[in-house]
């Protein structure tokens, strides 16, 4: 008997956030969804002058990558939010 795949607990840390963003997502969730949720939690509105991206173990995965791809057999993923000013 096969059950539903367990949700993956995602933690996103951001240096200027008072606390990390933590939420459970379905494994098939793409990173773009996690990024949008984290930006909302941190009170950041993307305006096209700054690029916001996520690091996983020092690499920047594509936003189309799913949490299942990142997590492998793990049930938790830790991501770091970073910024790059693209237009001054």
């Amino acid at each position: 008997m096969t059950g539903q795949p367990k949700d993956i607990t995602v933690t996103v840390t951001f240096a200027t956030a008072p606390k990390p963003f933590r939420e459970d997502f379905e494994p098939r969730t793409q990173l773009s969804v996690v990024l949008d949720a984290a930006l909302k939690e941190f009170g950041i509105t993307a305006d096209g002058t700054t690029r916001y991206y996520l690091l996983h173990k020092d690499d920047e995965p594509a936003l189309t990558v799913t949490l299942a791809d990142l997590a492998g057999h793990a049930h938790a993923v830790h991501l770091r939010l970073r910024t790059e000013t693209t237009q001054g």
Partner: protein
Amino acid sequence: MDLESRLRLERHVPEVEEFLASTSGRLVHRPEDEDGAYWIMMQARGQSGEPFIARLVWTVYPLRPPSLLFADSVGGATNRPASWPSAAGYRAPNDVCKPFTAEGQALHPEWATGPHAWRASGNPFLYVVETVQGDIDRANGQRAA
């Protein structure tokens, strides 16, 4: 620098040191340095050789962004382009025109509000160091001259 700024900075330094240790970097604050002044040895991830030496000076922490220049040595001159990364917005050897620097915010009063406003929450020291590291990584450690 006021006492509260100094104490807050001291609380945030360990996280900065931990991050730098993961990138083969190092934080230096000598006894002769003024409060709030740090020298940060940094290099592009995966590269070895001569590190960049960022000179970061905080005045009111965490409420104001730091001055950021690049030096040829710890305690050394900041006017040599070869000491600076060849990264977007890093205008060697004058300033780093980015929202996370005192120089950038002074040049762009419009950054005081909106998406480029200085964020004083969390650990701004770590935020600046992580952001500079990202810029150096994207420049593949290239120097301005």
